[in-house]
C-alpha cells in the first residue's frame, strides 16, 4: 500500500527537518501550553461570570468549591453529559465541523507567542517563526469560517444572519487591525514576535505616541474580531436569539463558547507581546534569580525564567479583565455604526498613522 | 537607487495619475449637482488638460536622452516616448469622441478609467521587463473591462464586458504562467538579459521549458491583440461597448500590446524563433520555436477574420473581425529581419490604429442619429452627412489598402518584411501569398460598407449635424492618413531614426 511508506516518509522528513530533540521539546511545549490555555479559558469564563455579577451588584456562581472555584469543572461535566441533540433540518457535516473549525484556529494562533524568555536554555515559544505576526493573522482569519459555517449549516434564519454579520465584520476589522500594526514593524524592523519583545527591553512600545494610537486601534479592532461587546453583533441575543450558535447544544455549543474565550486570550496575549513588553518586567530583577538552581539537574532552571512567564501571565490577565469590564459597561453598537467605525474611522486613521510614523522615523534618523 | 530621478522619468505617468484622481474628486465634490451633459464636457476638458501636460512632459524627455531603470522596468528612449505620445493622441481623440454625449452617468469614473487605461498602455510600451509587462497589461485590461461594461442600461454591454473579462482572466493566467516558465528557464526578467542567456547557453534556444513558456505567453498576448483562436471576445466586446470605447480598445490597446509583443519576441526571445518555412520547390522546413505558432495564428486570423467579416450585419462586429484579420497581417512581419520587421510593424500599427479610430468615430457620430449600428441603418447616409461619409470612405479604403492611402504602404512594408525573412528561399512566401489573397477578399466587405453608405436608398430624415468635437479629430486623422499615403517615408524615416537611437 501507498500509505505506510508515505507516513514513514513524512516522519523521517519531519525529524530530518527539525531533529529528534526539537520534535520532542516542541511536543512537550505544545502539551503544556494547550493544557494551560484550556484551563485558562475555563477560568476566564468563571471570571467573566464573577466580574459581571460584581458589576451588576449580585453574587455570581459561588457554591461549587471555594468561592465557586470548581464551577468550571462542574460546567465541563455538565456540557459533556448533556444529550447531544442534532436538529433535523441542519446540514450534518458542516454542523459538526463548524465548532471544531471555530476552536482550532483560536488555539493554533498561540504557538507563535513568546510567553517567557528561556527556561533551561529552551526559548519559551512553540514556533519562533520569522513571520510570526502574519501567521497570527492568517490563522486568526480562519476562525470566521467556524462561525459562518455554523450559521449556514444550522439552516435557520437567526444563525444565518449571525454568520453573515460575522463574516462582514471580521473582514472589515481585519484590515484596520493589520494596518494598525505596521508602525510597530516599522519601529522594530521585524515581524518576528520574539524580536519584537526583545526590542522592548528598555521601553515598552505603547509609550511611543504613534504606537499608542496603533495600540488603541488594535485593541478596539480585536474586540470586533473576537465578537465581544460592544461589537458582538453576530450573537446579539436581543436581536438574533443567540446568533450563529442558536441551534447548537451540549459540547458543540461549548466548543463555540471556548473558542470565543480562547480568542480573547490570544488577543490579550498579542497586545501584551506587541505593546506591553511581552514577558519583560518593568524593573530590575535581583541578581540572585539569574543563578541556576542546580538541584533540579540535569535540567538547569533559572528562577528568572519563571518570573518572566509569570509577568507575561499577569499582564495577560489584566487585558482579559479589560475585555470583561468593557463587555459589562458598554452597550452594543448598531450594525451600520460598526461598519462606519471600521471603514471610515479606523482604516484612514491606521493609514495616516503609518504615514506619520514614516515621517517620524525619517526625521529621527 | 535614486528616487528623485526615477520620479523625473515617471513624471508623465504621474501627471496622468494625478489627472485621474483630480477628475474623480472634482466630479464628486464640485459638479455633483450639474447636469450630466455639462459634467461630461467639463470632465473631458480636465482629461484633455492632463493628457496635454503629459504630452509636454514626454516631449521634454525626448531631449534628455536614454535611461534604463532597474532591469528594464522603465526604459526611456525616443522610440518608447514616441509611442507614449501616440497613445496620448489616441486617448485624446477617444475623449473628443466621448464629449458630445456621456457614455454613462458616471462621468468622472469614465474619464478616470480611460486615463488609467492610458497609463497602462504607456507603461506597457515603455517596459522591457516581464513582470512590468504583465502588471501593465493587467492595468490596461482591467480598465478596459470596466469601460466596456459602462453602459449599464444596455444588456449587450454587460455581455460584452463579461465575455471580455472571462477571456481576459484565463489568458492572464496563461500569460503569467508562461512568464514564470521563461523566468525559470532563463533566470532573468528583463528582455535584454534573457537575450543574453542565449549567447551563453547554446541549448537554450530549444529548451522545451522555455518554449512552453513562450507558447503560454503567446496565448496571453494573442488575447490582447485578438488573433484567432483567442479572438472570441472581440466581436461581442466591440458590439457591447460604447463606440468611443470600442475604438479605444481597437486602437490604443492594440498599439500598446503589439509594441510589447514585438519587443518580447524580437528583443527577448528572438533566438528561440524556430521556423515554419516552405521553400521552393515545396520543401517544408520546421523547427520548434515561436515562429510556427505565430505563423499558424497569422494564417488562421487572416483567413477566418476576413471570411467572418463578410457575413457580419453589424458595423462594429465587422470592424472587430477586420481587426482580427489585421492582427494576422501584422504578425507576418514578425518573421522579417529584425530592423525591417520592427519598422514595418511600428509603421503599420500606428496607421492602423488611427484609421480604425476614425472608423469608430464615424460610428460614434452617426449610430444614435440613424438608429443603431447595424450596417443597414447607415443606408444612404451620404445624403444626410456627406462630409462624414467621405471620411468613412478614406478610412475604409485605407483599411482595405488602396494605393494612395497610408494603409497600402503599411501593408506593403509588412508583406515585404515577411518576404525578407530568409531572403534566398522566400520561406514565408506561403504566408505572404495568403495575406495578399485575403486582403483582396477584404475589399469585398469594406466596399460593401461603402455601398450601403453611398448607393443604398436613403431612409427618412434630414441632414445630420455633427459635433465639432467629433468632426475635427476625424478630419485630422483622415488628413494624416492621406499625407502618410503620399509621403510614407516621413513616418518610416522617423521610426527608423528612433530605432537607431534605442
Amino acid at each position, binding site marked *: 500500500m501507498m500509505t505506510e511508506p*508515505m507516513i514513514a516518509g*513524512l516522519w523521517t*522528513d519531519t525529524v530530518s*527537518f527539525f531533529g529528534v530533540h526539537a520534535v520532542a521539546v516542541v511536543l512537550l511545549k505544545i502539551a503544556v501550553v494547550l493544557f494551560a490555555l484550556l484551563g485558562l479559558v475555563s477560568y476566564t469564563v468563571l471570571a467573566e461570570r464573577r466580574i459581571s455579577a460584581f458589576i451588576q451588584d449580585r453574587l455570581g456562581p459561588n457554591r461549587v468549591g471555594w468561592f465557586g472555584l470548581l464551577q468550571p469543572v462542574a460546567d465541563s461535566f455538565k456540557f459533556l453529559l448533556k444529550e447531544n441533540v442534532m436538529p433535523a433540518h441542519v446540514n450534518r457535516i458542516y454542523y459538526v465541523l463548524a465548532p471544531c473549525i471555530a476552536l482550532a484556529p483560536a488555539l493554533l494562533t498561540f504557538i507563535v507567542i513568546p510567553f517567557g524568555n528561556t527556561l533551561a536554555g529552551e526559548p519559551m515559544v512553540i514556533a519562533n*517563526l*520569522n*513571520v510570526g505576526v*502574519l*501567521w497570527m*493573522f*492568517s*490563522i486568526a*482569519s*480562519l476562525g*470566521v*469560517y467556524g462561525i*459562518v459555517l455554523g450559521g*449556514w449549516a444550522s439552516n435557520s434564519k437567526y444563525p*444565518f444572519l449571525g*454568520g*453573515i454579520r460575522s*463574516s*462582514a465584520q*471580521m*473582514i472589515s476589522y*481585519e484590515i484596520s487591525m493589520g494596518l494598525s500594526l505596521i508602525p510597530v514593524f516599522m519601529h522594530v*524592523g*521585524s515581524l518576528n514576535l520574539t524580536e519584537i519583545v526583545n526590542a522592548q527591553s528598555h521601553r515598552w512600545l505603547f509609550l511611543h505616541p504613534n504606537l499608542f494610537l496603533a495600540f488603541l486601534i488594535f485593541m478596539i479592532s480585536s474586540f470586533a474580531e473576537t465578537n465581544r461587546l460592544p461589537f458582538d453583533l453576530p450573537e446579539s441575543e436581543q436581536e438574533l436569539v443567540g446568533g450563529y450558535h442558536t441551534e447548537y447544544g451540549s459540547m458543540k455549543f461549548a466548543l463555540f463558547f471556548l473558542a470565543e474565550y480562547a480568542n480573547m486570550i490570544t488577543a490579550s496575549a498579542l497586545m501584551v507581546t506587541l505593546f506591553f513588553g511581552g514577558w519583560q518586567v518593568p524593573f530590575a530583577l535581583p541578581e540572585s534569580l539569574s543563578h541556576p538552581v542546580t538541584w533540579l539537574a540535569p535540567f538547569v532552571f533559572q528562577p528568572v525564567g519563571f518570573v518572566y512567564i509569570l509577568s507575561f501571565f499577569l499582564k495577560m490577565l489584566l487585558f482579559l479583565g479589560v475585555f470583561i469590564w468593557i463587555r459589562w459597561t458598554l452597550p452594543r453598537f448598531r450594525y451600520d455604526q460598526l461598519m462606519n467605525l471600521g471603514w471610515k474611522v479606523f482604516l484612514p486613521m491606521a493609514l495616516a498613522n503609518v504615514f506619520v510614523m514614516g515621517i517620524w522615523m525619517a526625521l529621527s534618523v | 537607487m535614486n528616487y528623485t530621478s526615477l520620479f523625473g522619468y*515617471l513624471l508623465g505617468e504621474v501627471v496622468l495619475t494625478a489627472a485621474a484622481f483630480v477628475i474623480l474628486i472634482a466630479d464628486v465634490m464640485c459638479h455633483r449637482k450639474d447636469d450630466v451633459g455639462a459634467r461630461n464636457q467639463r470632465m473631458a476638458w480636465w482629461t484633455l488638460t492632463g493628457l496635454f501636460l503629459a504630452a509636454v512632459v514626454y516631449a521634454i524627455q525626448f531631449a534628455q536622452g536614454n535611461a534604463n531603470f*532597474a*532591469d528594464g*522596468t*522603465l526604459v526611456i528612449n525616443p522610440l518608447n516616448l514616441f509611442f507614449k505620445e501616440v497613445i496620448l493622441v489616441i486617448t485624446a481623440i477617444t475623449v473628443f469622441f466621448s464629449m458630445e454625449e456621456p457614455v454613462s*452617468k*458616471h462621468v468622472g*469614473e469614465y474619464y*478616470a478609467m480611460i486615463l*488609467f*487605461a492610458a*497609463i*497602462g498602455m504607456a*507603461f506597457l510600451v515603455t517596459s522591457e521587463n516581464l*513582470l512590468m509587462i504583465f*502588471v*501593465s497589461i493587467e*492595468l490596461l485590461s*482591467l*480598465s478596459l473591462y*470596466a469601460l466596456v461594461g*459602462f453602459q449599464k*442600461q444596455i444588456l449587450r454591454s454587460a455581455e460584452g464586458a463579461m465575455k471580455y473579462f472571462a477571456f481576459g482572466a484565463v489568458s492572464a493566467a496563461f500569460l503569467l504562467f508562461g512568464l514564470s516558465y521563461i523566468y*525559470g528557464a532563463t*533566470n532573468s526578467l528583463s528582455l535584454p538579459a534573457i537575450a543574453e542567456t542565449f549567447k551563453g547557453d547554446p*541549448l537554450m534556444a530549444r*529548451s*522545451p*521549458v522555455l*518554449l*512552453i513558456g513562450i*507558447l503560454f505567453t503567446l496565448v496571453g498576448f494573442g488575447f490582447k491583440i485578438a488573433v484567432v483562436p483567442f479572438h472570441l471576445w472581440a466581436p461581442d466586446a466591440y458590439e457591447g461597448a460604447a463606440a468611443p470605447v470600442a475604438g479605444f480598445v481597437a486602437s490604443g490597446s492594440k498599439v500598446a500590446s503589439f509594441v510589447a509583443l514585438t519587443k518580447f519576441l524580437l528583443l527577448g526571445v528572438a533566438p528561440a524563433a524556430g521556423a515554419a518555412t516552405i521553400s521552393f520547390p515545396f520543401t517544408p522546413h520546421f523547427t520548434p520555436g515561436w515562429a510556427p505558432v505565430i505563423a499558424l495564428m497569422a494564417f488562421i486570423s487572416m483567413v477566418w477574420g476576413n471570411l467572418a467579416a463578410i457575413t457580419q450585419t453589424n458595423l462594429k462586429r465587422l470592424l472587430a473581425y477586420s481587426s482580427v484579420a489585421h492582427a494576422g497581417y501584422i504578425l507576418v512581419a514578425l518573421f522579417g529581419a529584425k530592423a525591417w520587421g520592427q519598422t514595418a510593424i511600428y509603421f503599420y500599427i500606428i496607421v492602423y490604429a488611427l484609421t480604425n479610430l476614425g472608423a469608430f468615430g464615424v460610428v460614434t457620430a452617426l449610430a444614435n442619429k440613424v438608429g443603431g449600428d447595424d450596417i443597414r441603418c447607415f443606408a444612404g447616409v451620404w445624403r444626410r452627412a456627406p462630409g462624414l461619409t467621405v471620411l468613412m470612405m478614406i478610412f475604409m479604403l485605407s483599411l482595405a489598402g488602396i494605393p494612395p492611402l497610408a494603409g497600402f504602404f503599411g501593408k506593403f512594408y509588412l508583406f515585404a518584411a515577411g518576404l525578407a525573412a530568409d531572403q534566398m528561399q522566400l520561406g514565408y512566401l506561403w504566408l505572404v501569398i495568403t495575406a495578399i489573397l485575403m486582403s483582396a477578399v477584404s475589399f469585398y466587405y469594406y466596399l460593401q460598407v461603402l455601398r450601403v453608405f453611398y448607393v443604398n436608398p436613403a431612409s427618412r430624415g434630414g441632414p445630420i449635424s455633427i459635433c465639432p468635437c467629433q468632426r475635427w479629430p476625424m478630419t485630422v486623422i483622415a488628413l494624416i492618413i492621406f499625407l502618410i499615403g503620399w509621403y510614407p517615408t516621413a513616418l518610416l524615416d522617423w521610426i527608423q531614426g528612433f530605432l537607431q537611437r534605442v
Partner: protein
Amino acid sequence: MLWFVLLFGLMTLVTGICAISVRNIVHCALFAVVFFFGIACLFFTLRAEFLAAVQIIVYIGAIAILILFAIMLTHDVTGEAAGGMIHVGGITGGVVAVAVAGSIMVALFRESLIRNSQSLVERTAAAPQVSVKTIGEALMTPYVVPFEVVSILLTAALVGAIVLALEQRPAKKEGS
C-alpha cells in the same frame, strides 16, 4: 521534503478537481478553501513562510470568505438544476486541460533529456534564504515601478467594480 510536497500536492490536486466538479456551490467554495490551504502548505514546505502566510490571509481569510458570503446570499446553492460535467463545453475544457498539463510534463521531461538527464531543479541555483525584509527591499528598490503600478491597478479595479456594481437608481426628481 519530498513526501510533504507529494502529500500537499495531492491534497491541492484533489481538492482543486473537487472544487470545479461538485454541484453544490457551497461545497465548491469550501473545497477551494482547502485548495488554497494546500498551496499555502506547499509554500511552507518550500520555506517561503511569508508567501504561505500571505496566501492564507488573502485567499482564505478574505477572498474565499467573500465568495462564501456571496454564495450564501444566493437562492439556489445545491446546483441540482445545473447539468453535470458531461457536455460539450465540459469535455472540450477537459481535453484542453489534459493537453496543457501533458505538454508541460513532456516539456519538463524533454528538458532533462536534452541536458543529459540533468533536471531543471539541479541546474537552477538554490533559492536564496528570503526574509520579509529582502522581499520588502526588492519591492521598494528594483521593483518599485511595478509595485506602484499595482497600486494604480488596484485603484482602477476598485473604481471599475464600484461603477459596475452600483445599483442603477432612477434619477431623482427635480427639487425633491
